[in-house]
């Protein structure tokens, strides 16, 4: 895989994380008075799911070093603690590599469950490490469904990009 492909892949992951940030910053409770007083409930993991897609779709091309570099760049770009995304990208990449052949026989529904579950695990770890006071099971449950809904558009969108650009 050449440098241009890495740039394209990283750009899609970057845009995903940027979207996550933008969605999280949108205070829906301000516009819907009925939600006033309800705690923060939903967090998307679009960037993480996009990374998962690329490893899932091209496991022979994205190895530990790519995951490590994408991780450190995301940590730097989004001002997270250095090492957090590195760790998760490398670990997720390993799991996807190990089960890459098994994923081929998975249905879309099984893929949705697996990747939404991975996203929730990532989210739970993030909250436990950086913000344990705000950790909530309700947030994880709602986020699971939101990320499950997000997987198919990400899957088809990234597949279109992969077939046309990478």
């Amino acid at each position, binding site marked *: 895989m050449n440098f241009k492909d890495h740039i394209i892949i990283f750009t899609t992951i970057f845009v995903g994380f940027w979207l996550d940030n933008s969605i999280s910053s949108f205070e829906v409770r301000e516009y819907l008075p009925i939600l006033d007083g309800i705690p923060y409930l939903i967090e998307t993991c679009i960037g993480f799911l996009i990374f998962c897609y690329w490893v899932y779709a*091209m496991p022979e091309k994205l190895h530990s070093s790519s995951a*490590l570099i994408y991780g450190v760049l995301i940590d730097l*770009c989004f*001002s997270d603690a250095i090492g957090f995304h590195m*760790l998760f990208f490398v670990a997720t990449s390993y799991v996807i*590599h190990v089960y890459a052949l098994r994923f081929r026989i998975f249905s879309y529904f099984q893929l949705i469950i697996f990747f939404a579950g991975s996203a929730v695990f990532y989210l739970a770890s993030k909250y436990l*490490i950086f913000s344990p006071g*705000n950790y909530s099971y309700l947030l994880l449950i709602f986020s699971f469904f939101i990320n499950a809904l997000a997987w198919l558009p990400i899957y088809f969108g990234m597949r279109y990009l992969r077939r046309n650009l990478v």
Partner: protein
Amino acid sequence: MARSTPTYTPAGKYALGCFISIVLLTSDINYQTFSSIRSLTQAAGIYSELTFQYFLDQGVEFTSIRSNKKDLLRANQKLQDELLHLQNKIFLDQQSAIISKELFELEDGTKKLFEDRVAQSFQVASFDLKNYLCCSSHTLHLKNPNKFNIGSNFPVSNGITFIGQTSGSNLNLIKVILLSDSSHVLPIKIADFHCNASGAGKPLAIICLVSRNSRSSDLQINDLAFTSGMGGIYPNNVLIGKIKSIKNINIDEREILIELNGDPLQQNYFGIFL
């Protein structure tokens, strides 16, 4: 579905990657090893956002048809900004006068020191809304076009009360850590009761954890909380908020949740003592 099968990847490389990541993460969380790099990239990100926003605004202004309504809205926004600017200045001048008076009464010599301090208003450059709404880290960045030398621990006001303190600056952007940030500690007093309130990690909330045997049993919901001036950063007797709830969290401890008065989301300008 992907069309190819994966190549063999040795687990050792992944283990090494995980080990490096864990070392970096631990050192960053525990010792803030990369905080300067992070602050720098954060400041660079804010600048790129501001630049993008500027060009976007210019583009929109260039292409849009100017209508009376739009002009009025813009004038209204400008006046609101001016009002906030003035409000901040008045509040900080009042605080400055109070401090100067107290110091004069205590010791003539030290008065000169505070007379030199002036209050300045700064516009918000970026508000970390994502973390403010969900997580423990509550920060914002202020523009510093005049390049004032602002370090850490300067009190920041919204014109009504204090909302936090400065935490250094990078690339002429002043970082402000809000009272509700979980790493912030504010000495407060409620009637005769004193405690160190730490940020709750939730918007507009700080928490006092106190012993159940202390004088906290006299406290009631809606009692007013003031700065005690003990930390040496904030002046004494400024209204911060009121008690929202009192909970016994175990047999020894009680949690007093204080709802803050100053909502940082409502302002575009904040004042800092220089």
